[in-house]
């Protein structure tokens, strides 16, 4: 089965502010196949969260202008009515957030929050709903009925994230959007949550769109990675290939700025100098990364490079010859 579950084409999101318009996402296209985990990687402000929120239609019109196409199976989500979106949200597509401490309503018991979703989408109430809740809680590793009666403040951060995941999975979504779900957790809990997501994905054949800036997390869980910079896709590849031989200088720089256990200590990390460009709705005169790029050259100033194939499924937006990028690597 090679049919895509999620098909994003030429997605652009522009926010109009009083002074100027900001294009946070610029003609982004990608697919997520059933059962696949796709990583969306980039610095803060590169458009990864805006992309994911567009899938769920969470931008307020008319402040944000969303163009392009987002298809979930047969359904077009760009321009869908609120009622249509409500039907998709939490049912076919769910989302989990970065901070589990603020993702649960402090005034509702776990049970009440879970019940709301079931009632909304599956019209399930009473004992049947309860049985379903207990089932899903044991799947995310929280056994026991007493947790259902707990308020969020009585649970630890890791447990709350599990509850959030349980809530997201309650209706058996086809796609789970995970917006940095492990960033606020400490490393051991982080590993547990990743393990849980991996297991759930295999069990349910669910796709995950995993948004993160942590390449370590990417290597743990993603099949494929999309690297974004300044609202654009700059590279797309299978995780292994991307981590071993990055074909875009930005990806390369990201990797060099990430600490790794397989590199001996004492080696230095190389942060990326400078700041991401100010986003605007105008066409770029040069490659967006050129001002910060260690490999920049004359040709980089002549308009923005196009996203082109670099062998197989790999895509990159760069004019530096492939041989130069791979030189010195196996």
């Amino acid at each position, binding site marked *: 089965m090679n049919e895509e579950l999620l098909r994003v084409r030429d997605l652009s999101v522009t926010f109009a502010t009083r002074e100027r318009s900001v294009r946070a996402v610029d003609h982004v296209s990608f697919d997520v196949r059933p059962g696949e985990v796709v990583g969306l990687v980039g610095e803060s402000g590169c458009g990864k969260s805006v992309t994911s929120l567009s899938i769920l239609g969470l931008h307020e019109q008319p402040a944000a202008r969303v163009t392009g196409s987002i298809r979930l199976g047969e359904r077009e989500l760009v321009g869908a009515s609120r009622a249509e979106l409500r039907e998709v949200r939490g049912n076919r597509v769910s*989302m989990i*957030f970065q901070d589990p401490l603020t993702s649960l309503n*402090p005034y509702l018991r776990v049970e009440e*929050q879970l019940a709301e*979703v079931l009632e909304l*989408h599956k019209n399930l109430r009473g004992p049947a709903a309860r049985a379903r809740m207990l089932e899903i809680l044991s799947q995310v590793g929280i056994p026991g009925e007493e947790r259902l009666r707990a308020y969020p403040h*009585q649970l630890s951060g890791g447990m709350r994230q599990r509850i*959030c995941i349980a*809530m997201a999975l309650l209706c058996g979504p086809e796609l789970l959007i995970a917006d940095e779900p492990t960033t606020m957790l400490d490393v051991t809990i982080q590993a547990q949550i990743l393990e849980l997501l991996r297991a759930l994905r295999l069990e349910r054949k669910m796709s995950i769109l995993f948004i993160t800036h942590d390449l370590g997390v990417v290597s743990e869980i993603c099949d494929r990675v999309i690297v974004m910079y300044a609202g654009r896709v700059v590279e797309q590849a299978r995780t292994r290939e991307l981590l071993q031989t990055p074909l875009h200088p930005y990806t390369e720089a990201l990797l060099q700025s990430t600490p790794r256990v397989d590199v001996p200590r004492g080696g230095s990390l190389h942060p990326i100098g400078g700041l991401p460009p100010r986003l605007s709705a105008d066409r770029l005169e040069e490659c967006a990364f050129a001002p910060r790029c260690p490999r920049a050259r004359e040709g980089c100033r002549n308009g923005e490079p196009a996203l082109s194939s670099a062998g197989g499924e790999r895509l990159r937006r760069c004019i530096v010859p492939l041989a130069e990028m791979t030189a010195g690597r196996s």
Partner: protein
Amino acid sequence: MSKSPFQLAMQRLLHNRMAILGGLLLALIAFGCVFLPVLLKLDPNLTQPALRNQPPSARFLFGTDGLGRDLVARVLVGGRTSLLVGLAATAVSVLVGVAYGALAGFYGGKIDEAMMRLVDFMYGLPYMFLVILIMLMFSETARGDMLPVFLALGLVQWLTMARIVRGQVLALRRQEFVLAAELLGVSDARLLIRHVLPNVFGVIMVYATLMVPSVIILESFLSFLGLGVALSWGQLVSDGIAVINPIRSYWWILLWPSSFLGITLISLNFLGDGLRDALDPKGKT
């Protein structure tokens, strides 16, 4: 059994001595005002010309006024009006203010802009004039009816409540749990009623508690000016001041209503402060 955040707050409140003291005093005064005049068959309007301006004694605990009326009866019955006006006008302003502020904050953007400019405009009006105007308008048609007082005071006080609620809702609207609920497909109305408002409830309660005393003062002020509609503490204070002069002072006529008024106001403030500390232990607001 697990406790809700609200139950935890009530627990904290019970450990606050000043708040408990305030609550007890209030309960005592309210009980006295509501039940004692009935139980003891006190008549605040019974004049006894032979017993004018009597100082406090065993027969008249608080003394009598210039027409020989028993001040115990008058203070207690007057308290009914003051407390009732305080509660009812606050209820009006909470109802209007919360609904208005919640809608503005929830929908934000242009709707919020328009709604809040109206509030700003009304803030700019001299509210005392407004109240006096409303009272005068109604005083001809409905003498003795207290509804105009509730409305006049409530309609002036709701502005602050609307601003507070709007700010809170605006902030909560962007909280992740509200976003999460929205992403799970929860409708607007449900989002507002079930996820946003319960989280503002504490703030509403605190400000409502602190609003009661300011409404009572306002009403007393109106009564003091002679714009009151019924016997209240403000009117009694006004009577008391009238008989204070350098030659002969009937101090008790002023002392009792002002003491009751003062104790009630202080108690309400202690209770409100206690509530604020209990509901918001981190001191966010």
